[in-house]
């Protein structure tokens, strides 16, 4: 399943549960309870809230462990030992990308199956370095910030034409600030 669709499904489920809760309660409005029933209902509500607290705590603790035990952002202050290293510089309003070891001026071409380290910085203002997969969805991104180098470690699994777009507003030429590169399957054994 495409990751974004998975996120969408989770979100719709959560929002749907909230919606259902509101509709359920609103549907009961207009049928007032007596004082004694109201008191019992209050106690039940209090117990239900504790269960909801426990459920949310468990959910959030589980999500925290599931999403952070393998930290999604690579170490920034130590070598990443990637076979392919790409230096990226954003500037108003273009991208400069070069694969270390590749002749200057040649078209950028990366390989599937082995990690690529992108070293991303900016020559002027904040930019957003986002890699769009051939299906039009974002594969990975980071900020391109003047004075800092943000490192992405990403392994391409599918060959194709990947597009880079700027995701941090940077002035008039923000939208057309794009480039592209090819990802191919490795040749030979």
């Amino acid at each position, binding site marked *: 399943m495409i990751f974004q669709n998975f996120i969408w499904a989770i979100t719709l489920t959560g929002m749907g549960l909230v919606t259902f809760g509101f509709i359920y309660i609103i549907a*009961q*409005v207009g049928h007032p309870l007596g004082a004694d029933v109201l008191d019992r*209902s209050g106690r039940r509500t209090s117990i239900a809230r504790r269960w*909801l607290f426990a459920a949310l705590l468990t959910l959030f603790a589980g999500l925290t462990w599931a999403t952070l035990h393998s930290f999604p952002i690579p170490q920034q202050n130590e070598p990443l030992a990637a076979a392919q290293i790409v230096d990226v510089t954003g500037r108003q309003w273009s991208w400069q990308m070069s694969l270390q070891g590749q002749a200057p001026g040649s078209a950028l071409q990366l390989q599937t199956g082995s990690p690529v380290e992108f070293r991303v910085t900016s020559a002027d203002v904040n930019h957003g370095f986002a890699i769009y997969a051939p299906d039009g*969805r974002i594969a990975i991104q980071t900020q391109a910030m003047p004075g800092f180098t943000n490192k992405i470690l990403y392994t391409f699994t599918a060959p194709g034409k990947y597009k880079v777009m700027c*995701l941090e507003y940077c002035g008039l030429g923000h939208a057309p600030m794009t480039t592209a590169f090819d990802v191919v399957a490795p040749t030979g054994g």
Partner: protein
Amino acid sequence: MTALTMYPQDEKLTGGERTAFNLYIISAVTLFVLMMLIGVIMRMAQGTWLNVAPDMFYRLLSMHGAGMVGTMGMVTTAVMWFFLRKYVTLHLWAFVANFVLFLLGALSIIGAIFVGHYAALWTFLYPLPVHPMGLWTPGAAALFMIGYLLIGVGMLLFYLDAAAGIIRKYGNLGRGLGLQWLFGGTIDPNHPKAVVASTMVIIANSLGILAGAVVLAMCLINIVYPDMAMNALVAKNLIYWFGHMYINATIYMGVMAVYELLPRYSGRPYPITRPFLWSWAASCVFVIIVFPHHLLMDYAEPRWLAITGQIVSYGAGFPVFLISAWGALTNIHRSGMRWAMPSRLLILSMFGWAAGIVPAIVDGTIRVNEVMHNTQWVPGHFHFYLLLGVLPMALALMYHVVGSLRSAPRDSGADRLGFPIFLLGGLIFTMAFLDAGRMSVARRMATHLPQWLPTDHAGAIGALLVLLAMIYFALRISAGLLRASADAGTAHAAG
């Protein structure tokens, strides 16, 4: 405990108070209409239904962002003032000074954008304001920032006056927040929820505004002395600390309308409880330290800050779901709820907040943020809880005050039509943003790829419906308030 009198005497607006309140509200609804109109234009331009040049588009985007955030801050300050003045002494001059400074700030911002062509958005993300590539002058950027400073000074003045009032009455801010009852003791059932919420807002948003003032002052110095440059990451932290706190404070100021008004319409008391006090104490901490979730894609940021951003984003869900939304639903469950515009809007506001926080929490997950950051997912979730959450809180108070003139809540046929149009339009508009986020549509772009246009079109239609409803609300509320002013000599109706 909140009284169940529909229009209590201590809420009556006297001459000067009424004038000030009307100025706030009529300015706010007018600005909301204008900013929504800009929003509709931008969505239509993205969908290629309107031809707007990119430079104008980014000016409009700057105006829409600054205008909406500022207006939301202004109108929810009126909500806070309206209720807090019942419990502590507030000086009208501070409330009026805030409004005057807001107007001066707004004029500066409008001048910077439409005369000086400033277009570095409401976030003024350093160093973009000083890298305009010839589109605007340093003077325009400085004028924009001075506008922010004026608005911030006004709000701080109001907060200082409110803090002084709370301290005079309760001894210190901690007692206003109810910290003395967190671990035991008998909670004073008459301790007002509005005081608890106001104290939290004063603490948190004063810090946020001060952070904003620091970075604005540094930016202004940089404009005058370009060699005195800033660390871009430090500036970004300060900007988002300020920005996040400022806009979130609007929720916490607006929700006072729910606490105060909902029990009057449900006919059931809404008592203050220990979980309620815990939730506000927790929110006070969370809202101050949650801002790093805006910088999850700044990998140079210390790792512990990113982890803090994610965990606190999750933690912020507890007070919303367990206390505010749950409390409101419990209050109306099997009640003899009196359905009218204020009560409809109050329930909508809690729904908008609770449902809108779901995509926000999801996006606070670093792994999710890697594919959703700066896509239209972001305006999707914040429009959800601002448009369908905070705005209805403020509208509910406005309708309630208008209703007080005739001793009855407003609920005409036109109101009953306007409400579903607003709701339907709001849902279409926000869900189109979220769906666009799913498809990786970038936010803040003047021009869109052909495959992105369907969600732009859906969003534009939703925005148009919202605008139509808001025009009606604005006319209805303005006319009602002005009529109330004309009849101010008549007795204040008691419910």
